[in-house]
């Protein structure tokens, strides 16, 4: 029985194969034929397709989140509601989700090294704090929504469950009972940012002890335990944990949201100092040098885990867990692998609050065929090119397991008009691709081609409606990015302009710029010197990209994202 979606094209995306299925959606591996990069595409499940409220919420939220840029949040590229399908395309993360990583550890009878616990925890916490700042609660924090890329990056996805707090509530619970916070279990609308942090507390409990705090064949019973039972002492399960660590976890699992850590950063800071009490003597390494061709940014042990698949290679001894940490811990299995969750109204009756139900079944990866990308062997280090400057950008790389796209793929005009992002004026369609991202405080340009183009050939200016302001139109000249080191933007690198002086800047940190940013220009908020052309002023809606003085593209200010080509 062939999946009818496979082989189809939506917008620029060709659907290639199923990656997995969750409670309300299917996730496919696809290919962006225009930008020639892999994508993951999430289609809303048929069951919800016909619920127009939910479907449009799905698309709208995805569009809104397309504007987010955070290192630890899966980037959404595009969202649409077409041909009877609601879907969004996002960054494809080549790796594994945290639940699988945890299973691998369990199978080996090991616990994750502390450094990785902290790294994953901090990344997730940082993503959550960012979302909370934007007024969004995730509501579905669980290991399967934390993806760990082979290059070591940690990404949080699936804000699909999230309700904009400003919108109020739909009243339904989509949460997963193992990780659900007491207030969500009672009433979905009661979720607060600290509910996500409770779920994070459950994940940390599980990582550090090997088991979740509440486990029961009946999901209703699990939810009830979250509401009323005190969690077991983590030390009773893993005696190696210190009382300090236990205190942090238990505080994260407080029933009353007010008694928990209020931000992810605080939770992780407390956990770090509990896990590493002598941290004063231990100093972390500084980040990689700026502007180097990036090979991998991760710590190796995570990579190893993320790379580790069916062939269970034994450690070669180099990456042993942190000294002093137990090599093995006996833990009970989290839950029966084939256990189907049964949902009912029993609990609803028990606690007397209506309007919620679990909708979620757990499809087991063990029964599904392994995803082909994971079956490819881990990248041995000798496979890395000798000269990183020649490294193919992972954003552009096509997995070799995929059939190569023929040049006869449908032309641009056949694709529907994107609704999230503005189509660039394509003056040089065969040219070299550059991408722009911006928000209120930051502007980034990324070279997606391997062409070396002088930075001074670029300029940007806002197209002001008000003709009077023509003369002092905000404009930025690319030469200002030039430095002793760089006169052009190397392949896969970014340059940026960040406005300085805002007291609460959510500065953008585009994942696509993780290769490196070669230059940062910093105008001030109060006096930006007329450099800030990408913020809407006097009714302007677009800015133009100039190449050697000529307009090469127009970008919509509100879009936050724009691609263009230069010769």
């Amino acid at each position, binding site marked *: 029985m062939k999946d009818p979606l496979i082989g189809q094209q939506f917008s620029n995306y060709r659907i290639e194969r199923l990656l997995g299925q969750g409670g309300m959606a299917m996730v496919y591996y696809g290919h962006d034929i225009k930008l020639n990069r892999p994508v993951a595409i999430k289609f809303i499940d048929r069951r919800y397709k016909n619920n127009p409220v939910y479907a449009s919420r799905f698309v709208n939220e995805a569009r809104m989140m397309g504007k987010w840029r955070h290192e630890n949040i899966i980037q959404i590229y595009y969202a649409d509601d077409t041909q009877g399908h609601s879907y969004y395309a996002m960054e494809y993360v080549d790796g594994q989700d945290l639940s699988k990583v945890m299973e691998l550890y369990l199978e080996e009878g090991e616990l994750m090294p502390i450094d990785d616990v902290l790294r994953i925890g901090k990344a997730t916490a940082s993503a959550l704090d960012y979302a909370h700042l934007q007024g969004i609660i995730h509501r579905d924090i669980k290991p399967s929504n934390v993806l760990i890329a082979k290059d070591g990056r940690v990404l949080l996805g699936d804000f699909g469950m999230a309700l904009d707090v400003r919108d109020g509530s739909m009243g339904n619970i989509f949460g997963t009972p193992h990780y659900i916070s007491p207030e969500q279990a009672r009433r979905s609308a009661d979720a607060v940012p600290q509910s996500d942090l409770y779920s994070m507390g459950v994940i940390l409990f599980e990582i550090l002890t090997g088991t979740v705090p509440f486990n029961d064949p009946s999901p209703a019973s699990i939810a009830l335990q979250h509401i009323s039972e005190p969690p077991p002492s983590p030390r009773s399960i893993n005696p190696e944990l210190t009382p300090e660590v236990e205190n942090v976890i238990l505080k994260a699992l407080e029933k009353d949201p007010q008694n928990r850590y209020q931000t992810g950063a605080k939770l992780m800071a407390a956990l770090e100092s509990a896990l590493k009490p002598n941290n*004063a*003597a*231990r*100093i*972390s*390494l*500084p*980040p*990689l*040098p*700026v*502007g*180097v*061709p990036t*090979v*991998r940014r991760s710590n190796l042990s995570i990579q190893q885990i993320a790379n580790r698949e069916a062939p269970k290679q034994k450690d070669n001894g*180099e*990456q042993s867990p942190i000294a002093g940490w137990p090599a093995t811990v006996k833990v009970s299995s989290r839950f029966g692998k084939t256990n189907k969750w049964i949902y009912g109204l029993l609990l609803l009756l028990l606690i007397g609050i209506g309007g919620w139900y679990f909708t979620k079944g757990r499809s087991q990866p063990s029964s599904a065929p392994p995803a082909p990308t994971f079956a490819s062997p881990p990248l041995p*280090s*000798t496979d*890395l090119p*000798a*000269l*990183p*400057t020649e490294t193919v950008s992972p954003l552009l790389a096509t997995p070799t397991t995929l059939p190569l796209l023929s040049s006869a793929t449908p032309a641009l005009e056949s694709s529907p008009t994107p609704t999230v992002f503005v189509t660039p004026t394509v003056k040089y369609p065969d040219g070299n691709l550059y991408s722009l991202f911006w928000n209120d405080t930051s502007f980034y340009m990324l070279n997606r081609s391997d062409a070396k183009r002088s930075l001074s050939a670029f300029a940007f200016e806002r197209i002001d409606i008000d003709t009077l302001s023509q003369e002092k139109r905000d404009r930025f000249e690319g030469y200002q990015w030039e430095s*002793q*080191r760089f006169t052009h933007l190397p392949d896969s690198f970014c340059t*940026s302009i960040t406005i*300085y*002086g805002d007291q609460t800047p959510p500065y953008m*940190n585009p994942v696509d*710029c993780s290769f*490196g*940013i070669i230059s*940062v220009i*910093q105008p001030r908020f109060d006096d930006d010197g007329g450099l800030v052309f990408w913020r809407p002023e006097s009714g302007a809606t677009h800015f133009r990209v100039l190449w050697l003085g000529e307009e090469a593209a127009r970008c919509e200010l509100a879009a936050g994202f724009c691609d263009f080509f230069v010769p």
Partner: protein
Amino acid sequence: MENKKPSYEKASQLTASDLLTAAKTISVQQLSRLSLPEVEAVVELISKVVPAGNVPGMILSGLSRLPGRRIPAQKMQQDVNALFSGVEQILDQAVYGAFFAGPAAIIWGYQNLLKLAGKDPDSAFPEGAWQFYAGYALREDTARHTNETHGFDTLLRQNNIQLNSVDRLTAWFMAAATCLHQYHALLENEWQERVSIALLEEALRSDPGQTQRTRRLYREWELMRPYRREEDAANYDYPAYRRLKLERFLLDVLKSTPTPVREAWESKLKATSQQELGDYQRQMSILAYLEPGPYGETRVPFKLSDAQIGIIYHDSYYLLPACEQGSNKPLDVISARAQITALLASPFSSPSQLSSLARVKRASLPGLRTKLNPMLVNDIDNLRFAPILISADQHSRSLPLSELRQTERGIGSHALTIFDTGDSFVFDQSHIFFDGAWGTALSEIMTNEALSWARYLSLLPSPTPAGTRIYTSLTLQLQPADIDLVQQAPHIPSESGAESDRVDIKACLALRKQFKQRNDLLKLTINDLLVLYRAIHAATYKPSAKLLAEINKLSETKPEVAASLHQLVEEGSRTNPSILIPVDASLKVPRERIYPLNVEVPLMELNLLSLHSQTMRMLDAYEDATQDKTVVYAGFDQYQRLYLASLAGFGTYLSRAKEIATLGQSASVGAIKLLAHLPLPLQKLLDKIPEKFDLLNNLLKGREVFSNVGAVAPNSTLTRFITAKDDNTQKQLAWGVMTDAKNIMRITLRDFRPHVATLLSIGRKDLASLITQDYLDAYAEGLNSFIRDLSRISAANRQTIPTSKTRKLSRIKK
């Protein structure tokens, strides 16, 4: 502070008028042994070029301690007591008159003699007085600071990263190349931080609501100034990151600043930076080599694109360009790595012997140059383009820094040499380019930069050697004739070094607190205590039994040497050392770098030694008394007061002296200024004066250096520090003090006393080391017990019957 000013000015006026009278009685000819025509010639020339010195500055800077110009000890004591009891009137005019008038009269007379011409004193110092002085008198191999960081190896170990030797060297090569590229930006950071904050403090001081915070702004910034890129710096290089942090800091302060104040500050900062920043960057740039001349060094700048990084491997020198060919771009890491792979794999050439040249006096190098073999001279010239040398040969970390650096290290025409100990890195820095504080900061910054590269390199596949080599290997062998020439040339004095971490810094800090609780005027800083005890140590030092036994053993074979060693000890205890303390002058005007402050602890004048022992005796008596404690207490109380008053007087005096030095008005600065304005032949003439004219010598040079770079930042991995010594042969000891992140105070001593050379010449280096170590250990141990005593003295108070508990405690502490 404000209300002290009038009395300060009044005191100056009073003193000046006192001086007028005093000066008339002093014959000009008695001051100098120059012949009359010589004096006249000096007067004539100097009157044309020397601007007016600041007379009150000269007076206040501690001239009271000139040999043979002392006021009676008793009088001094009275004055100090008066000073201490007259709480508000810290600067009692009467005290000033007595303290300063006599000796100050001399310098006043001297200056008067020179008919100072009243020009702008700073006009002759585009780079500040210290820069001039450094090039003039801090040029020899001994005029280098050396410090050490352990962060590179410690952090790699903690993060389970193991580097092969290629990557180890590559990481440091990249750190060095990055350093050269960022140097201007780093200097801009340094400059901006000081000037913007100083100007802001100044601007805020006029705002009455602000006074509390304003004085501490720079301190606040110091506490948060980053020395490395943290996680939030992934996209910024270090200078950009640090600038960002500064801007955030300033913005926070400016939030509550009225707009007019802010605007005035901004425009002043802008104007100042337009005028001065570029000059400062040129002055401090390490993209320059030193060209030795007979009287001083000339800094010869060169282009970044010409810069090389020198690599010393198996005692041979190699040059690897810091930039891509024909550009200003740094050599990319992959090429650097491939070159270093090839370099380390190359069969080594015969080792160089430049270290023998490093010890030759710089003044004789121009002469030597004409006689040495041309090949050697040619490659010495090539080496000049390497401002940074990295020695890949591993040197034992167990050596004192002063000894560790005695290896291949260029000939001293460059800024920085980095040594690998396998466990830490050691930075050897020319004082012409670095002051102690900036030098240690840069070591920290470079260590973190190297770590960043190490982290990157550890991700790469194993290196392969480059096909084409862009590094050059230098031929720096000395022929027999060259060796002869070098041996005959005048050399710098021999040196022996010792280090100690035995000082109990916690006890020092506790004592300070205790003092402060007792009386607000008892304001002795840690440094004051260290300096004070140095004078006591000089006067009381007794060699340990072990050392005495060694010396006695030596007397069997070398009786005359042994006798001279005994004499050394005795002489030492007779001279009260004049101590040169470098005071940071860069806070307001970065180019000024350092103001030297000369201090001679008024041990005799304040009768500190006997006061100490008498007070202790009275305290013991009081504690041991079984009956009438009141009487015994009264006796102790009298001494205790007098002693603490004297100490307070000393503290006040030192802090005043420091204040004056910071204003650039110390006598030492005055003397430097005097020198700088002279045409070269006259400088030579005047340079002889110190030998004839004790006054100037003492002022200018002091007998020893005491440099305390303070406590390092909490995350710093700096561990050791030795200080530079200027070229004056009178200066025989150089003390370096640094407190590391674990709060361990490390004291280092460089010993240049003549016995070192004697002992080296008879092959007894071990004994020379033993003598230095014994001297330093005695200092550290003695300081600890001195602090314990002081703590006991200041803690004791009136009580008829001491409880058994306090008694016990004080006994245990003994």
